[in-house]
């Protein structure tokens, strides 16, 4: 990536598409993860392997809580993609339009150049490997017959990488045409308002208080559906740590079914997490802080 997260400047636009808060820019995603401890969830399939769902790609979906937190910190603002598209697409003319098309073109070129660079590298490596192997084989066996499997193995990477025509010339010719880039938005990001008007906060459930509380304690908070809880709480980046808590939010005076405590405690302990419940204490005397209190439960008999 030529661009790094430096090029990202707050506040960031978060696209609201069909009630989901989405991020389409990898730089924004890394920036949010690094700076704001907001990870989101990758939900896009990978173009080359669309049938698998273990490894996913862009876009990143943010929980409503994450979106709200970012908006409240004034690090981001919500762009309703549908409304914005309707508004902008009709008036997309003249210089704006040319700019937009040009940006698409340059993106395409960039992508093409990157792809070619990697393929060239690959080719070089493969050729070098091939040369080494050949010389070794010749040294070892001389005129002896080649082992059929060995030969097949040796040839396959080479065949795969070699284009029909000699390599160097194609590379230089092909830069004429940009790759077709599928834009993620029907407007250029520059056309977005730099300082958006005050918007209502994204709708969240009452569990937002717990989310914000945990986030303010420098935890990484991820959605917890997999572990049957509201949030999965990590002590650091989820790539480095296992989560420590399975958090469930309750209203302060809500009746908590005993079964939920048993199930949560049991499951949490089983997967080596503490089962954490928390809520906002509305009657708390403490004026400072968010008045969220949390309790963790461990199942003793396992």
């Amino acid at each position, binding site marked *: *990536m030529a661009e*790094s*997260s*430096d090029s990202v400047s707050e506040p960031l636009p978060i696209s609201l598409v069909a009630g989901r808060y989405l991020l389409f820019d990898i730089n924004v995603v*890394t920036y949010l993860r*690094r*700076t704001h401890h907001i990870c989101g969830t990758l939900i896009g399939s990978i173009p080359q392997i669309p049938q698998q769902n273990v490894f996913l790609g862009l876009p990143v979906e943010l929980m409503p809580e994450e979106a709200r937190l970012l908006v409240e910190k004034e690090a981001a603002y919500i762009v309703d993609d549908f409304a914005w598209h309707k508004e902008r697409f009709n008036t997309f003319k003249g210089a704006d339009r040319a700019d937009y098309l040009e940006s698409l073109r340059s993106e395409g070129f960039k992508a093409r150049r990157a792809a070619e660079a990697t393929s060239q590298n690959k080719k070089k490596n493969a050729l070098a490997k091939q040369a080494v192997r050949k010389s070794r084989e010749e040294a070892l066996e001389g005129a002896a017959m080649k082992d059929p499997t060995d030969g097949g193995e040796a040839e396959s990477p080479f065949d795969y990488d070699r284009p029909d025509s000699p390599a160097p010339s194609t590379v230089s010719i092909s830069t004429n045409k940009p790759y077709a880039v599928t834009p993620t938005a029907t407007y250029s990001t520059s056309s977005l308002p730099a300082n958006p008007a005050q918007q209502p906060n994204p709708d969240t459930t009452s569990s937002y208080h717990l989310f914000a509380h945990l986030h303010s304690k*420098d935890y990484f908070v991820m959605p*917890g*559906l*997999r*572990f*049957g*809880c*509201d949030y999965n709480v990590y*002590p*650091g*980046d989820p*790539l*480095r*740590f296992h989560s*420590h808590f399975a958090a*469930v939010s309750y209203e302060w005076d809500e009746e908590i079914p*005993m*079964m*939920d405590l*048993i*199930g*949560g405690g*049991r*499951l949490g302990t*089983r997967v080596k997490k*503490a089962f954490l419940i928390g809520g906002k204490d509305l009657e708390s005397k403490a004026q400072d802080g968010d008045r969220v209190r949390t309790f963790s439960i461990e199942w003793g*008999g*396992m």
Partner: protein
Amino acid sequence: MADTTPVQAVQSEAAVTPAAPSSQPKTNRQNVNKLYALPAPLRTFPLPTLVPHNPLSLFQILYVWLSQTINPPSSHFETPYYGLWSPETRSVHVTDSRSIRGLWEQGFYGKGSLSRSEPNWMSGQKARRENKGKVTSEEVTRQRRAARQQTKWERARKEREAIEQKLLEEAEAARVSDTTNNGDSASTGEEGLFESDTSVTVSDVCEDSSVEKYMEWQSPVGPLELLSLPNSTLDLAKASLNLTRAVEQDVATVSDPVSFMGSNAAPVGPLQILALPNSRLERSFNEALLSEGGNEIVTATHHSLKEDSKDSFLKSRSNENGAAIGHGLNGHATATKPYMNGHSSITEGAINGSAHSDGTAYTSNFLPNGSAISASTPMMKRRKSVRFSPTVEKNTFIQNEPLSPEHASLITTIIADEAEPAKTEEQEHFQLTLEEAFFLAYSLGALTILDPVTKSPISNKDLFKVFRRSSYFPPLTNASFAPDDPFMLNYVVYHHFRSLGWVVRGGVKFAVDFMLYNRGPVFSHAEFAVVILPSYSDPYWSSDVSLQNYVKGKEKRTWAWFHCINRVITQVRKTLVLVYVDIPSPLNDGDEEDIGVDGVLARYKVREVVMQRWLSNRQRD
């Protein structure tokens, strides 16, 4: 012991035709099969088998059939089982041993109040007195749990060590990169997640803050650190206080564990958790003790170390009482000792990571009947100035019992009783849940439930009302009943599965309503876990806005909840069954009176949905 007559009647009839069992002793399986031969507390009278080449057998069949038609024998026992309705515990108590054994062996109803399920507290006590070790299933479970606990702490320790190692490396790397960054502004020392094109400023900020945090409060990377984090501002203040105090004291006293007593040690084992103060009051008392009577405690501990058996436990307690600490404080004074141990081991553990090996040594020594002193002596040889008192170990020894020191003292008395060779009296009773009791009384007619005050039998009709009212907490006092009260839901489902021949038992421990056993818990594990979900499908429930809201609240379940239950059940290799109970519209009291219990129950419908986790890439056959 049990109701042997019907069992033997059936057995003898069955034993006529097959070859008589040889004199060799029966296997465990055979014993179990014989003991639990009756699936319900009822008698059955099957016709004798027809042997084609023996015409006499035909006559025998005819005779039995005729005699049974003319004078039908009752399938109920002459004397029914008796239970006592206990409104306080909202259960039916059974105390006579014939009823207890009968109800347990013929259909696996109820549970012992001091046992996991089968009422075998008494035999467990006997076994313990005779020093037999593991006889009851509770005993086995306890040992298994102790072993599991040990492996868990061991695992946690290893993980923590690894993480600490990693953190040290990272801190080292950060320092290196810091110095290089300061030396020349080029960003060379990138590590961790930071990509090489990160700006210097960003990475600098991050590293600095993280290192700083690590110094102040270690970022919680393991269970230890997590526990040692301050829980409140109070703790924070305490910690700083302790720090200054520790600095003030000279080296000799610092090495003395007593000086650490007041600080908030992170509990690293069950012992330490036991010893944590339960309230702020105790905490402040702890402080007071530290300032005045710390030395007294130490002497008490030494003293008790010289004693050498279980009995010394009690003696040392009385010694401490004599040491003017006062009885009310007694439990606490003992409890502070593991506290110091815990803390000193932590301070060491932070340096060389040996904290958990101490904890392990503890647990391994606390097998039942292990002598307390043998556990403590090898530890005493260590270099550390940690005092171990047998009192404390006594506490851990019963680690599966209630945790607080007050309870510990209660346990002491039990142990004292046990030590005497005198006969232990039965302290356990048998409990039936509302559903079980009503099924036995109403559907099978095998149980007579007595009123706690008048000691007279309660009729099924009254029982139905009483149980429905008591299924709420606190019990309802008004007479009108909702068609969706918890008892109705549970009973309908219970009755449904019992009628289909399943053995139904409560499933609270797996966070579900019922567990279904094929034949019974002694034969196999439960196969299915039943979750009851009310379904308000009757048009009445959607006729009104307020009703719709009510229904919404009742039917509301989250996906997180479902995932949680499903995972718990899948982990224990059972199949989750969602049982929907169609709730009819409510009746007024007069109508309900008219149609009776049968009519009320007939209005409910039950639907079953089997749920299974299905992963497309794993369940490909």
